[in-house]
């Protein structure tokens, strides 16, 4: 036992030889990206990365930010909050990144946001949609570059309240985002249309691949309409199962009309699904949007999906923020980008000062076949401008108490 003790100590000391020497002053602006690059969520997250790269490459070509090139490091969190938090810690404590970015899993985003707050590192949330992120748990260092569930809920409820459905069923992925979006929609729907009734709920495990047993149970209750609260992993799976079982009840999913959800299914996606989305490459057909689509298509040989917009805008805001601050100072950066507006493919977008929310427009529509493409697109599109569905600054303040 004594020999082994010595051996262990010896090995520990040997290991110490591998400790790095202090790093020289950074020559680049380091952005740490924690996101899910494994599994079904990749359909959404790769676009965030590519949109980011598109903008960052352009900025670097013009000389970078304050003479420094944007350098980004990616880490795969496999849709698991513990891995994501671990990666964020590694990026900040070891990699010494200036800014954090990511992720698509809301629980991961909340965990990383906690950490970013303690470390005072700006964290741009690029796909997670739980409203807790910048409402209840919002703080100075977290920025929401995507819509959140409270917002989506209002937009969807607005549209649904005008429809004749009364008996509702809620079903979804049993995690932060799932509950959040379901709450968001239902809360506002009840307010706008007090006649609606909730006849039941079903929550399946995250990443559930086989919905058939759940679907039969939902159909047995004969609701008029189903609010399906699936996240990145479950979107396509549910639509596939709906198609396979001939799910006749109309349903709504947030992001159901997004290209990320519809493109992978080709012509087999279900028709008549209601959904909301922040970006559609074919609408509006403005010159800015067309230019963006062309640029993206040339670089990555595919149409940009909503993630591309989030990533693209994040890169631009990071660049402009540090440029305005005049140096790589995180505090000045945060002060600088509050209220800042930047041009985007869908018009000028601002980051609201009180909750660091990117003010994106929302589109509500229905899936339908489209002769121009190999996949379904959205029809009957209604546009909801940001101010019509964002919570007021007072509401945000009240939530943070």
């Amino acid at each position, binding site marked *: 036992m004594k020999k082994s003790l010595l051996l262990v100590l010896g090995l520990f000391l040997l290991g110490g030889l591998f400790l790095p020497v202090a790093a020289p002053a950074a020559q680049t602006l380091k952005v740490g990206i924690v996101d899910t690059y494994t599994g079904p969520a990749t359909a959404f997250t790769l676009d965030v990365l590519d949109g980011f790269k598109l903008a960052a490459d352009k900025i670097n070509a013009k000389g970078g930010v304050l003479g420094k090139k944007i350098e980004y490091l990616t880490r795969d969190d496999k849709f698991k909050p513990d891995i994501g938090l671990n990666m964020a810690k590694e990026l900040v404590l070891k990699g010494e990144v200036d800014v954090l970015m990511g992720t698509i899993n809301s629980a991961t985003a909340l965990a990383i946001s906690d950490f970013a707050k303690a470390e005072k590192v700006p964290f741009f949330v690029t796909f997670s949609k739980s409203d807790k992120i910048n409402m209840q748990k919002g703080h100075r260092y977290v920025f929401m570059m995507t819509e959140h569930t409270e917002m989506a809920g209002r937009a969807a409820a607005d549209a649904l309240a005008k429809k004749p459905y009364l008996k509702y069923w809620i079903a979804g992925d049993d995690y932060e985002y799932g509950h959040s979006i379901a709450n968001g929609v239902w809360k506002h729907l009840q307010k706008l249309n007090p006649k609606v009734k909730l006849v039941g709920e079903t929550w399946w495990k995250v990443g559930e691949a086989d919905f058939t047993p759940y679907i039969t149970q939902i159909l047995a209750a*004969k609701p008029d309409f189903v609010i399906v609260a699936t996240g990145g992993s479950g979107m*396509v*799976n549910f639509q596939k199962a709906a198609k396979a079982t001939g799910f006749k009840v109309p349903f709504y999913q947030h992001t159901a009309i997004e290209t990320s959800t519809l493109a992978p299914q080709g012509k087999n996606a279900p028709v008549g699904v209601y959904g909301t989305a922040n970006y559609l490459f074919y609408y509006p057909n403005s010159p800015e949007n067309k230019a963006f689509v062309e640029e993206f298509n040339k670089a990555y040989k595919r149409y940009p999906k909503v993630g591309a917009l989030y990533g693209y805008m994040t890169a631009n805001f990071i660049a402009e923020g540090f440029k305005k601050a005049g140096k790589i100072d995180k505090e000045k950066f945060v002060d600088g980008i509050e209220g800042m507006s930047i041009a985007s493919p869908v018009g000028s977008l601002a980051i609201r000062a009180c909750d660091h929310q990117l003010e994106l427009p929302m589109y509500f529509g229905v899936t339908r076949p489209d002769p121009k493409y190999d996949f379904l697109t959205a029809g009957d599109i209604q546009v909801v401008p940001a101010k019509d569905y964002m919570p007021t600054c007072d509401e945000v303040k009240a939530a943070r108490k």
Partner: protein
Amino acid sequence: MDAVWAVFSQKVLSQILIGLSRTTILFIVSSGMSLILGVLRIPNVAHGSLYMIGAFLAYSVSRIFGGGAQGFWMALLLAPLGVALLSLIAERLLFQHLYKREHLMLLLLTFALSLILGDLTKLVWGAEYKSVPVPQVFQGFVTIFSGFTLPLYNLFLLAVGPVAAVLLWLFVNKTKMGKISRAAAVDREMVGAVGINVSLVFAVVFVIGCLLAGLGGVLVAPTVSVTLGMDHTLIMEAFLIVIMGGLGNIWGALIGALIFGLSQSLGIMIWPQFGIIFPYLAVVIVLMIKPTGLLKSTW
């Protein structure tokens, strides 16, 4: 009252049918694992990875043959063979050297293999999920009662199950190789003593077991998204089914798969939130009553 009973029994019946179609895939995969466990005494942790590779291969093969119906049938034929080849390589290269070592080492080797295969899958196919379309002939659904539909593909699975069971029974009981494997499971030394190449027997059994895993993967592919991570969920279920059924007993695997598939879909009906607990509960109860599993095990 009658109407309520009618609705209730319809609900139950449709859940049962769905549970049964799941059983097919669980049975095919678990029987493979049971075979390997019974004869080689290896709990094959890599079984889930081979199942996953079966699904990914199905995707690739189906794409090569233009997707659609032809793609699916070619995948059904070729993907399991691909998995079998892969397992043969692993067996000859790694496993056969360890047969004389403790079981724990073999278990850990299969775990190591599952890690490697998992990442290899990511390397080869990338991280995005893949979609294998349901062949035309099975697209659509059949209406059992008013409002209760069953996808045609699930009907197909329901039919495949018994066919697979019969084929396996024939193999194990009627073919020479099957009989030798059964003997080797009980007493490998004796089998070696009568001049049979035990190592070869092991290789054949291992490959067939893995082929079954791959076959399960192909069959499940059109119903779900083919993604990384498929291996983890399945290996747990397969392992528990095999334990519940009795190590090395194929019929045990069938009963285990039945219990597992049914308890899950009925569980979802009874208590949706904790539906997935029912199979685990079933396993625990079975093992507490009969620790060696429901049917006679070969250990």
